């Protein structure tokens, strides 16, 4: 039986879906669930990771360190991971996260500029903390020559685990199949993080598993940025169906899935159930970071312009995660053009 590691990003990527409002109680309830149900890894924090809570991106309800502390108390077998993008985060943020009990630091950024993760990785390595490379916006390095040479270079500094993150939800099953087929030859541990903008998150994840991915990012009800992530309860059921893993009690996952919206409501967290709404399809097609959707909606309303126009223009400029201020500019300029 293949050993598949479930990495649950509900409390991190999910933060994108609720304006980073996940609170203490949510973390308490969900981390207990993760521990009890043998989830291998639970990721915690602001949607954009360490150091990202800000006026531009959105302020989180509680600090990353508070969040880590609460989860830490509830996790024994389940490992605790954080997401870190250099540029938002500094080495001090990484140090604080480690000091408060983080097991795995997943350092990522836009795939085309992935070399900027090296400093943080080397810092973790020096401090003997497991650190992975997360290729955010993987489609930026879609051509084989590009990602093979990048992975080879990162292997040289000691990175062993690589996550292919389809931040835009633009990849199709045939793409994922090819990517993992090529990565397999490099003798590295790989993982996949899907988004459902074009409805392919589950199909992509199955292809990744078949191609040798060991780590699968999922979230309950697909709770995550844009059209959401690979749905955890479906993956657990599929692992059974594909005879890959029998260790999960599927019923427990159904139960959490059933209760999840109610738990959010009880915690006064405003959330519209995930399904692929048209704006998420548009950002997917445009290869944009899924987390942009709420901001695009907000600026479309504020400046009284079409959200699809913003999405198209942002796609043309290849905006990267974090450039929310440029979304504001695009909306502003669209409204000026409209007046003319």
């Amino acid at each position, binding site marked *: 039986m293949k050993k598949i590691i479930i990495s649950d990003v509900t409390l991190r990527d999910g933060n994108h879906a609720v304006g980073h409002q996940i609170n203490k109680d949510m973390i308490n309830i969900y981390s207990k669930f993760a521990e009890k149900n043998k989830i291998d890894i639970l990721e915690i924090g602001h949607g954009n990771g360490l150091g990202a809570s800000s006026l531009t991106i959105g302020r989180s309800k509680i600090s990353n360190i508070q969040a880590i502390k609460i989860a830490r108390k509830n996790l024994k077998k389940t490992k605790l991971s954080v997401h870190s993008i250099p540029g938002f985060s500094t080495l001090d943020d990484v140090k604080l996260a480690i000091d408060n009990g983080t097991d795995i630091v997943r350092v990522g950024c*836009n795939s085309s500029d992935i070399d900027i993760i090296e400093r943080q990785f080397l810092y973790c390595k020096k401090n003997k903390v497991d650190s992975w490379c997360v290729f955010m916006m993987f489609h930026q390095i879609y051509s084989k020559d590009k990602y093979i040479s990048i992975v080879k270079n990162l292997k040289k500094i000691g990175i062993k685990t690589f996550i292919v993150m389809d931040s835009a939800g633009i990849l199709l099953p045939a793409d994922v199949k090819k990517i993992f087929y090529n990565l397999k030859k490099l003798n590295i541990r790989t993982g996949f993080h899907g988004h459902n903008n074009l409805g392919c998150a589950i199909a992509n994840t199955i292809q990744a598993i078949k191609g040798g991915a060991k780590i699968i990012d999922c979230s309950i009800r697909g709770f995550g940025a844009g059209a959401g992530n690979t749905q955890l309860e479906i993956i657990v059921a599929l692992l059974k169906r594909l005879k890959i893993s029998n260790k999960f009690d599927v019923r427990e996952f159904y139960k959490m899935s059933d209760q999840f919206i109610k738990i959010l409501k009880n915690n006064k967290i405003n959330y519209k159930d995930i399904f692929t709404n048209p704006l998420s399809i548009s950002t997917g097609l445009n290869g944009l970071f899924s987390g942009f959707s709420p901001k695009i909606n907000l600026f479309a309303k504020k400046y009284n312009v079409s959200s699809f126009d913003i999405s198209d223009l942002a796609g043309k400029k290849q*905006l990267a995660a974090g450039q929310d201020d440029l979304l504001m500019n695009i909306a502003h300029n669209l409204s000026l053009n409209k007046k003319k």
Partner: protein
Amino acid sequence: MRYLIIGSGKIGIDLYIKLKKLNLPGDTFIFNRNKNSIGAKYCKKKNFNYSSGGISHLMKFLQEEKNIIFDCTSAQASKNIYNKIKKKLNKNFYVNLTPAPLGKYFIPYFSNVKIPHSINMITCGGQSSVPVIMEMKKVIKDIKYVEVISSIASQSAGKATRENINEYIINTQRAIGQLSGLKNNKVIINLNPSKPPVNMMNSIFFECKNVNGKKIKEANVVLKNINKTIKKYIPGYNAKLFYKKSEKFFRVTIRVVGSGDYLSTFAGNLDIITSSSAYIGHLLNEKNNY
């Protein structure tokens, strides 16, 4: 006066060209260690006063004449360089263009101060946004938080910039806190991979207790003066204010269209720091205060 540049990366070469363009009295030289680097090859091709003798060759220059040393290496490398030359700084000037915490912060916008012998140029984000933050704080008393977001084109970020993202954030935050007194600040930097590259842009968010039309009017007057003054030494500098009614913050964007000396015009982030540094050469000549 001679102008000695150490480091032949994107910043070093751009600065060399800018210094030459200013036509200051005295020669300009550029040093590095690797004679096969892209920068070194460019220097040779363009017939620059170039040496691959590195810091040890540069040290020989310090025996005679007065010099300004422009450190265009990386935050890590500059510590070594500083330790070697610090004893020679009574006669010479040291301008650090890396984000290392060395030297006193200096921004040519505030040119009515004595120019320190050891200068920390902060970062491109700091150099361009700190004057705005300091001037805004003088007229708007209830600013409680400031956030600076820099977007630069991936292609304009050289090796040292990529390795120094950590120092970039720390040094910019520290400079904002120290110079404006706004310790409650945050700095974010994003690299943008788009092709063709996008022009660099900084956004400064000023969060206040409340914002009203009167304040925005005053802020716009301030901004007009800043633009006028900074354009003297960064010609492509343009700061603009954005405000939406009922919000408790306003935003100033700074765009710098580069003069396209070494990299194309999108790399205005380079121009901020190289133009400001070259202008120090001009100020020192003008003030004759070395």
